[in-house]
């Protein structure tokens, strides 16, 4: 098979008649999230809403449990949540919301709501960047009906490229098994071109933005 591909490369070289092969272009990065004076937090907020997710800003880490409880009550969702084992989530003062029943670990499909951290949040398109690890299982990002993502203000960046720089690499230097870019809740337009939320992944995506470092 490689021989067939290499025969093709030889034909290309003939056609080029000594000219060098096409070079790799310089990437074009949209100015939307990089121009001077852009407030990336404000842009992220607007783009998240446009992607049909919801967002609440809270002042500090200790406000998160109550915000999660309020969110669930408002949507008539059960008061049970599955937390990512990640310290930034598991160590929040959940006792502040005594009615919430918490468990940690991956999901097996029985959890109505998950609460997870993110690697970064991208203002360009209101995109959350999540990654798999022992502390952040991927099942939490897809199986529950409600996915609550808690981010700190300093995690918001302008572009995808800036977010990629924050991915935590494996011990041997490569990517983690999975990186998820998530922009709004799951949806489909496959029935009569009508856009509906909650096809297979979460029906609701809620961002809690903590106005300090997590």
């Amino acid at each position, binding site marked *: 098979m490689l021989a067939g591909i290499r025969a093709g490369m030889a034909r290309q070289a003939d056609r080029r008649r000594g000219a060098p092969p096409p070079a790799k272009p310089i990437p074009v990065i949209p100015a939307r999230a990089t121009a001077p004076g852009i407030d990336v937090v404000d842009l992220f907020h607007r783009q998240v809403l446009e992607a049909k997710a919801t967002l609440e800003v809270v002042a500090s880490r200790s406000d998160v449990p109550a915000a999660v409880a309020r969110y669930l009550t408002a949507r008539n969702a059960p008061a049970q949540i599955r937390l990512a084992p990640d310290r930034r989530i598991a160590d929040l003062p959940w006792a502040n919301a005594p009615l919430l029943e918490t468990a940690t670990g991956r999901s097996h499909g029985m959890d109505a709501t998950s609460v997870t951290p993110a690697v970064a949040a991208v203002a360009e398109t209101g995109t959350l960047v999540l990654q798999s690890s022992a502390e952040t299982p991927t099942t939490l990002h897809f199986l529950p009906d409600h996915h609550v993502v808690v981010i700190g203000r300093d995690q918001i960046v302008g572009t995808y490229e800036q977010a990629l720089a924050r991915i935590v690499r494996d011990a041997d230097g490569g990517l983690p098994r999975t990186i998820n870019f998530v*922009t709004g809740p799951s949806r489909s337009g496959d029935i009569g*071109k009508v856009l509906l939320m909650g096809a297979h992944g979460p029906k609701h995506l809620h961002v809690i933005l903590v106005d300090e470092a997590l």
Partner: protein
Amino acid sequence: MTVLHDSNAFKANAATALHDASLQEALAIAREHSIPTRARAIERLPEFERLRNSGRDLKNHVIAHLDQYLLQFEQSVVARGGHVHWCPDAGSARARVLEICRSVDARTVTKGKSMIGEEIGINAFLEANGIEPIETDLGEYIIQLRRETPSHIIGPALHVTQAQVEETFRKSHDGLDPARNLDDPAALMAEARAHLREGFLKADVGITGANFLIADEGASVIVTNEGNGDLTQTLPRIHIVLASIEKVVPDMHDAMTLLRLLPRSGTGQELAVYVTFSAGPRRAADLDGPGEYHVILLDNGRSAYLGTEFEEMLRCIRCGACLDHCPVYHSVGGHAYGWVYSGPIGSLLNPALNGIENAKPLPHASTLCGRCESVCPMRIPIPKMLRHWREREFAGAIAPMPERRLIRLWAFFARRPWLYRLAARLAARGLHLLARGQGRLKSAPFAAGWTRHRDLPAPQGRTFQEQWRARS
């Protein structure tokens, strides 16, 4: 296991499609929807045209270094504990998938949307070998139940109306209460979601496609809206990726260039809901994810077009914009093209992958209006390449006899300019007289095919060349 190849029946298929009321209803909805949606997305990104140049140049670069990037991709996948299977044709790809499924005695396989899966006919093959494939993309699921091929690259069930979806679910879902109201799209989607959840949780193997392969990281990328692809590749023990060779890009930054183009061109979204990068099997400490990661690297005839006048079609990222903007596709839908790829890009790919003799009418299923090229994020010159197929068809004596005679007749005159001018003068004057000053003809010799449906505009008596000479 037969893969449908009736592209040669395009004319008959098109005639049927034009009289299919429910298809026309579905096409009308799609037409109204897709053009303005894309236009709005592009208007919001001033850099879009520059991004198109960048995407085109990137793919040209990859195509000129394809062996190198594929080998680098393989090395990176293997370094992360994954496997790459080089498959020259559809048969070898199917056999490899089956082998992997059998290694864990798989009974059920979930599938994310994959055009390569359609191209190699993987579902029918697995079924014939006692393995149940479950399509999980809503559109693919609907057409799997209806035993159809996709009619659009990114909206496979575009031809199915809401009422037909309800009918399909009622027929196929055992235990569905006949009294249950499925009168709106949301109820239908809820029914599919509940039904497919069981499939996700019981599957032994998950098969997805790949929008891109990243050479230096050994990662595959899927772009979806439903989240089905992620459940497909996260829950089972094995993740198999079906990808063709031209999907490789050098690094993550290149994938970002294509990501800024693909959803905007395809669905008019700023970004699809889920973009997922997968590199190898789960890590030792991970709580979830597949234990094995396999990539099927399919050629299936593509490499034969490297270094030819058709090479540029390998830039295609399967966004579907050319279908969404094609007046022919708008009128007849995807199935008329007779295979899994349809619309303008299908008219290039089907002859390329199945042989021009099996897709003779497709290069002609175009008015060459150029809308496809004007929206293609990879700037593929589709009309130019359709003309290349027409040339090959003529050169290979594949075109129908009357057409070949006509072209030869024209060539006879074209090689003798004085005779050409004389004949043109006679024809122009003759037709002018025939029209008796009406300026149009209700019928004309040898032109019944045209005049049956519309008048033929008649020349005003003098040829263009004569008028031009009179002016200068």
